[in-house]
C-alpha cells in the first residue's frame, strides 16, 4: 500500500451548545504520495474538520473514532516530538492569511519560527532558506520582505508568504483550506499557478479544500464531494462536472451560473445545506434530492466503488444510465 494518508471510518463529535454533536460521519479518504485530491462542499459539510483532524487541530473536547494513518503511523496516538514531526511533514495553508499570522511580528520571524524552534536551525541559515522559498513563490526582494510587517503586504502577497511558510519545513503533504477564496480572481489564478507548479516540482501531495468544483478540477487528480459531514462521491476531477455519480454533485454543478451563457433559470435544490447532526436518517441528502425513493430514507448508503470512482447513492447506476 503506497498511500501517504489513509482515513477510514472517521467520525468526529464536538461539544456544541452543551451537547455532543456529530460533525464528521464515517469519512474514508486516501491520498497517495504526490497526488492532489480536492475536497469540495458547502458550509457545514465537514471539509475543514477533515483537514484539521489530519493534523490534530480539532477544538478541545472533540471525540474521534475511526483511523487516520499517515505514512503508516496512527495519528490520534502521536505525542510530543512525533506529533511535531507530523506537523512538519504535513503543512497547512488557511483561507485568511491575516487571521493566521501574528500582526506584531515580522514576516521573517513568522517564516523562520518553525525552523528555528522545532528543527533548531540557526537564524542566518533559516533566513537564507526563507528568502529562497519566497523567491520560489514569486516574492522578489526577500531580505526586505523579511523585515516587513503583515499589514504592509497585500492579501495576495501575504498568502504567498503563508505558502512559503508551509513549504519551509519540506512537507510531503500540503493541506490547503480555501487558500484563494479571499483573493481577487486574477490574484487567485496567479497563486494557484504557483501552488500547482511548486507541488509538481517537489512531488508534494495536496488536499485542496474549496467550494469551487471547477477550481478543484483544474488542480486536482481526484475530487471528493462532501455533504453533511459525509463523503458523497470521489471521482476523477475531470469527470465530475459532466459525469457526476451523485445527485448532490450534479446539483452543485447545475446551481453555479455559467460564464459562457445565461440560463433561463438556474436549477435549484430546495432547502439549505445541512450539518451532520441535522442530517436525516438514511441518505443525508434525501430531504433535498430530486431523485429520492423510499429506500433512500430507510438505509444509509455506504461509499462503494462504481465506474472508476466511489459513490454513496443507492440509485447511482440507474441515474447514470438515464443521463446518457
Amino acid at each position, binding site marked *: 500500500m503506497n498511500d501517504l494518508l489513509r482515513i477510514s471510518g472517521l467520525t468526529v463529535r464536538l461539544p456544541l451548545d452543551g451537547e455532543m454533536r456529530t460533525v464528521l460521519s464515517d469519512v474514508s479518504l486516501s491520498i497517495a504520495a504526490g497526488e492532489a485530491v480536492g475536497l469540495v462542499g458547502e458550509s457545514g459539510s465537514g471539509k475543514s474538520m477533515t483537514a484539521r483532524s489530519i493534523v490534530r487541530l480539532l477544538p478541545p473536547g472533540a471525540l474521534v473514532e475511526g483511523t487516520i494513518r499517515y505514512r503508516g503511523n496512527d495519528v490520534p496516538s502521536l505525542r510530543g516530538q512525533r506529533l511535531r514531526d507530523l506537523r512538519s511533514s504535513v503543512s497547512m495553508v488557511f483561507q485568511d492569511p491575516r487571521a493566521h499570522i501574528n500582526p506584531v511580528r515580522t514576516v521573517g520571524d513568522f517564516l523562520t519560527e518553525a525552523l528555528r524552534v522545532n528543527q533548531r536551525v540557526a537564524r542566518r541559515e533559516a533566513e537564507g532558506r526563507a528568502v529562497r522559498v519566497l523567491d520560489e513563490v514569486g516574492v522578489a526582494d526577500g531580505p526586505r520582505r523579511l523585515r516587513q510587517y503583515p499589514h504592509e503586504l497585500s492579501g495576495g502577497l501575504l498568502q504567498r508568504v503563508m505558502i512559503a511558510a508551509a513549504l519551509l519545513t519540506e512537507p510531503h503533504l500540503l493541506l490547503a483550506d480555501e487558500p484563494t477564496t479571499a483573493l481577487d480572481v486574477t490574484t487567485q489564478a496567479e497563486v494557484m499557478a504557483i501552488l500547482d507548479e511548486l507541488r509538481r516540482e517537489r512531488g508534494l501531495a495536496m488536499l485542496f479544500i474549496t467550494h469551487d468544483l471547477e477550481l478543484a478540477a483544474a488542480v486536482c487528480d481526484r475530487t471528493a464531494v462532501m455533504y453533511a459531514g459525509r463523503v458523497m462521491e470521489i471521482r476523477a476531477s475531470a469527470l465530475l462536472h459532466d459525469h457526476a455519480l451523485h445527485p448532490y454533485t450534479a446539483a452543485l454543478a447545475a446551481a453555479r451560473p*455559467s460564464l459562457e451563457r445565461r440560463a433561463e433559470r438556474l436549477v435549484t435544490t430546495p432547502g439549505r445545506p445541512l450539518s451532520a447532526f441535522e442530517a436525516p436518517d438514511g441518505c443525508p441528502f434525501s430531504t433535498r434530492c430530486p431523485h429520492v425513493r423510499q429506500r433512500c430514507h430507510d438505509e444509509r448508503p455506504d461509499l462503494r466503488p462504481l465506474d472508476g470512482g466511489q459513490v454513496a447513492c443507492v440509485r447511482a447506476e440507474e441515474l447514470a444510465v438515464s443521463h446518457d
Partner: protein
Amino acid sequence: MTDAILEVEGLRKNFGEATAVRDVSFSLPPAGALAIVGESGSGKTTVARMIVGLERPTAGRVTACGRDRSQPARSARERRDRGGQVQIVFQDPYSSLDPRQSPAAAVEEVLRLHTRLDRGRRRARVAELADLVGLDERQMAALPSRLSGGQRQRVAIARALAAEPRILILDESVAALDVSIQAQVLNVLADVRERTGVAYLFISHDLAVVRQVTDDVVVMRHGAIVERGPTDRVLDAPEHPYTQLLRASVPRPGWQVPKTR
C-alpha cells in the same frame, strides 16, 4: 439618455491625495440591470456609496428619478424621499440586520416609514414581500440568529423592496452565499425585477453571476471605467486587456491554471 432612472456623470472621489474614483459616468434605464464589475480597489463600492449618499462626491453628478442627489439631503423629508428611490443591500447579511428584530418587524417598520398603508394593509404587504423572496411565515417571525445566511439575505432584499424603490443597489449581495443558496437568491432577483420593474445596479466581482443577472456591464479598474457594453457582448468578446484577463482567470469546466514561468 434622458429617460434613465439613474444617471451618473463625471463622478470623482478623492480620499486625501488618493483618487478612488475618477470620471465615472453611466446610466441605468427603468427596470434595467447594470453590473459594475471590478476587483478590490477598483472603486466599485465607493461609487455605490456615493449614489446612496454614504459618501459625498468630490466632483460629478448623481441623478436618480430625475432629482439631483450629489449634495446631502437638507431635510428629513428629503432624506426619506431619497430612501424611497434608491435602496441598497450589502454583502454581509450577518451585520446588516438588527439581531433583536424579526424579519416581519423589520419589513413592517420600513412600510410604516415609507408608505401610507394602514396596519392591516401593512401586514398583508409584509406577507406579499415574504412570498416574493421565498420566506415563509415562521421564518419571518424568527430572530435573525435562527436564519441561515441565504435567508437573511432574502430578508435584506425584502426590507429594501418594502420602500418601493425604483433602484436597488446590490453590493456583492450574493458573494458570501453557498452555491446552492446563491442560485435560489439569483432566481428570486430575476423574479423580483420581472414582477416589480425595479432596476438593479449590481456590484460584483463574479462574472458568471453578472452574466446571469444583468443586461449591461461596466468594468472598473483603479477607479476608472475601462470597458462597457451589453453583458453578453463584453463577456463573449472582451475588448480591453484587463477584461480579457478577468475573464481568463475564472475557473470553469476545462479551465487550467495559467503558467507562471
